[in-house]
């Protein structure tokens, strides 16, 4: 039911882990529905230079988390926050219909990490 690309990202997920001195952290989902994604980003200037994730969830949840790290790295935060869940699914050559809503949260996790980064940056410049 999963595309080869989903299975590739599921079996060899890219950028698993945490960033100790991350500039932004985003977490979405909840244990009730069975998917939690956490993303850490490192930003230099305006560009995402490093990104890591940890995910509790099904095959689609792990694959979307993995693929978005590849999509976002090297992009400016403004570009990266425009990535949609739909684009993530397309990058994976599609997801089963039942997975489109519950497990396709990676773009939201990234947006949350970027928002966290912006808040922190604003607090830093204010102090």
């Amino acid at each position: 039911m999963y595309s080869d690309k989903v299975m590739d990202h599921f079996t060899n997920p890219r950028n698993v882990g945490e960033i100790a001195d991350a500039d932004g952290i985003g977490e979405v989902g909840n244990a009730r529905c069975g998917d939690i994604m956490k993303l850490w980003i490192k930003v230099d200037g305006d560009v995402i230079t490093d990104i890591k994730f940890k995910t509790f969830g099904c095959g689609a949840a792990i694959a979307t988390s993995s693929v978005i790290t590849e999509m976002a790295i090297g992009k400016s935060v403004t570009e990266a926050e425009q990535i949609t869940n739909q684009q993530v699914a397309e990058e994976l050559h599609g997801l089963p219909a039942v997975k489109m809503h519950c497990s396709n949260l990676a773009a939201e996790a990234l947006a949350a990490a970027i928002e966290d980064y912006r808040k922190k940056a604003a607090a830093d410049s204010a102090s």
Partner: protein
Amino acid sequence: MDHAATTPVRPEVVEVMLPYFGTDFGNASSVYGWGRRAHQALDQARDTVAELLGAASNEIIFTSGGSEGANLAIKGVAWAYQTKGKHIITSAIEHHAVLDTALWLKKHGFEVTILPVDEEGFVSPAEVEKALRPDTILVSIMHANNEVGTIQPIAEIGAIVRKHGAFFHTDAVQTAGVLDLNVEELNVDLLSLSAHKFYGPKGVGTLYVRKGVRLDPLIHGGAQERRRRAGTENVAGIVGLAKAFELAREERVAENARLTKLRDRLIEGLQTIPSSKVNGSLSQRLPNNVNVCFQYIEGESMLLNLDLRGIAASSGSACTSGSLDPSHVLLAMGLTHEIAHGSLRLTLGRDNTESDVDFVLQEIPVIVERLRKMSPLYQG
């Protein structure tokens, strides 16, 4: 290791079915030779199944499987006895064929009490007694649970139900061919089973209906099955069911002993994984059922990894239940959503050996560790 989902048809079973697709293809209702031969085969299968259940042949209805059996038992009794009462009792861990049927009746004016279970998945006979009312017409409690393998005290519950004048149905889909199913000893009035769970064909089952229990049919349009189930009989399937049931019952004791050993070896091995928990009862448990929750990880990703290693299993996670919630059985037993998502069910069968068990015990800890390292919930 997913034999609770389904089993392959045994070659001996295929062999006895084959003539009824070809040389003896007749309609059992026809008067000529082909029809008579089909009818004889049906009669013989009915006698075999009746004998195995300790019932009379005219108490056996052949159905399309477990779901139809449960639907016919529950809706059939509800419709036939609605002037006597409109209250039905069932439990929170029933198969959806029972639960959803009861809930459908609720939409049509019946009252449904859904009994809770304890943390091992047992329905309490005392709770059944408390829930019985003068207008209770039917109680439906499964013999053993398909997810966690807990075997219910059916005979005890049956005696209580009978004392109160209601009918008692048990869904024996997981126990047919495995446990001793004697309808007298079990104190049941209706019992449903399905052939494909005991190495018979898919699409055929049996509903036992005690003499004197009236049943409105679900399917109208013919006099088959004593007017309780219209439609040309699935002769080959029914012959296959009877043969598979017979074989299972002959080999039951030896096979159960073998499976219990493998099961306990699996349970013991899986329990050594940190933050894991065996679900269900350890004493009153199906001989082939293992159900374990691994904290911090999700079931479907475990199943995908197992599949990549050639191991077929199942899980109670939401992704595999087809809804947003994990297994209603595990939730009813008091597990949190988060933990229920990480459940894994392994159900052993005839073709599993000790080396299969050892292979699984070698693979699962690696998979669990790998997924935990990826999990934001795990602080390992």
